[in-house]
């Protein structure tokens, strides 16, 4: 169940889109609007919506497979989007821009492509931004209900790794896990710290979480993961650390530090299965070292967030096999 109206994005996002595109999206069929996941705008090319399959959008709001009759975005449209999403202030979102995305009020995230301007080998900012991927933020409160009982052993929370390919609901489920722990689970209120490098979990806008992450949750927004985990361990005395998309050796070292400090880590990573995760260097080390007590695997088999199974972190054997939407 979504916490907010499924078409709330129209109210919150259409004002940042140019007139023609906003009108077309406003006229989209209600069912498609409710399941909309992404809007892709590329200069001089047809506008595409993922609802959840990719379709082109016509100027009358119809969905089509024919690119020739689709609404095409102009260079001016891209300029308009950039001005609006940055509130005419690109300097205010410099750090996010270097990462290739901008977070909007309401928890929406706009990824973009353009020509990066580099300085000493690092991206300083972007120019000529001509591609935008607008991700519709949706909270699915309760989507972690099925996995929550499996995250505890003798009342103790186990570190958990959530695996799935992109767009399968990893972030959504770890957000709900954070929320539920923060609200109280297994007779205890958990002090949760989210290290939200890409502002996707809490969807913070100017430091304020736009998604419900629970009353006992602190968010380190747009903070590099490893550095954020170190800061959280040092300064916030968390009971649980939550972070997204782990995969580097530095992440691994921080997870070892957290385990050493008795802090459970709830993290996600790209992999379609445990077998696939074992083929990735850092993930395989994390799994074989037994740093995670549980591994949750998600897919899109029956829609985003389909729970494929919950695995024991030590034996890597399934403790729950599902295959149904969580």
């Amino acid at each position, binding site marked *: 169940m979504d916490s907010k109206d499924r078409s709330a994005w129209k109210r919150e996002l259409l004002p940042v889109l140019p007139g023609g595109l906003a009108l077309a999206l406003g006229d989209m069929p209600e069912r498609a609007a409710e399941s909309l996941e992404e809007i892709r705008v590329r200069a001089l090319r047809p506008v595409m919506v993922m609802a959840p399959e990719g379709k082109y959008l016509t100027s009358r709001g119809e969905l089509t497979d024919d690119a020739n009759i689709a609404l095409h975005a102009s260079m001016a449209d891209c*300029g*308009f989007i950039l*001005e609006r999403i*940055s*509130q*005419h*202030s*690109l*300097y*205010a979102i*410099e750090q996010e*821009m270097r990462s290739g995305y901008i977070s909007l009020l309401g928890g929406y995230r706009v990824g973009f492509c353009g020509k990066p301007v580099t300085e000493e080998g690092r991206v*300083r*900012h972007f120019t000529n931004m001509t591609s935008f991927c607008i991700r519709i933020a949706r909270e699915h409160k309760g989507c972690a209900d099925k996995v929550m009982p499996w995250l505890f052993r003798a009342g103790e929370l186990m570190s958990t790794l959530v695996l799935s390919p992109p767009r399968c609901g990893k972030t959504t489920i770890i957000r709900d896990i954070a929320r539920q722990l923060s609200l109280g689970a297994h007779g205890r209120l958990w002090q949760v710290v989210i290290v939200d490098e890409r502002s996707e979990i809490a969807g913070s806008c100017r430091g304020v979480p736009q998604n419900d992450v629970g009353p006992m949750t602190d968010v380190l927004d747009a903070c590099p993961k490893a550095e954020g985990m170190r800061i959280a361990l040092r300064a916030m005395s968390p009971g649980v650390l939550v972070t997204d998309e782990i995969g580097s050796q530095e992440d691994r070292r921080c997870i070892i530090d957290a385990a050493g400090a008795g802090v459970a880590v709830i993290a996600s990573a790209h992999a379609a299965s445990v077998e696939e995760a074992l083929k990735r260097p850092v993930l395989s080390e994390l799994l074989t070292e037994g740093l995670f007590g549980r591994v949750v695997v998600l897919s899109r088999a029956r829609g985003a967030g389909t729970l494929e199974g919950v695995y024991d972190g030590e034996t890597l054997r399934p403790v729950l096999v599902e295959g149904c939407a969580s």
Partner: protein
Amino acid sequence: MRYILLCAASIAVALVGFYRASLFAGRMAAIEAFIASLSQLSLLISYEALPLREAAERLAKADNAAAPFWAALREALPGAPDTRTAWDAAMRAAKAKSARLSSLLPQDEAVLSEFASGLGKSDAKTQQAGVALATERLRPLLARAREQSESRGKVARSLGVLGALAIFILLM
């Protein structure tokens, strides 16, 4: 009755002179205020990364000639397609309300408008460079405005007084 009309005409001529002088002083005050505002804007951008609308709101609270402009910019930004459009609309609106801003010359406005075309479109470092460039271009205009305010302002005031006296003597 004749003397009353004579006095009124003389005072009117004197006031025209003083009004002309105040325009020179107004232009100087407006440019000075913009230089000060831009310097403050640079700080708001680099240290607080404050979005432009909020920065304009902060600058509108200053007690200087540019404050009405920043208040108008704050209002114009949300509906504008880009910063330059909002800036130009705000300048028109502020000039209609403020005598000091209406004394800005086209060359003063051109410098500010060119600055606006890059405002908010890049990182803080480039924005600071933009502010520095605009300030550098405004300084000679301010020097000229100050010079004009002193020399031509004095001339306008003197001509006003002399004109008033001349009218009084001739028509008496």
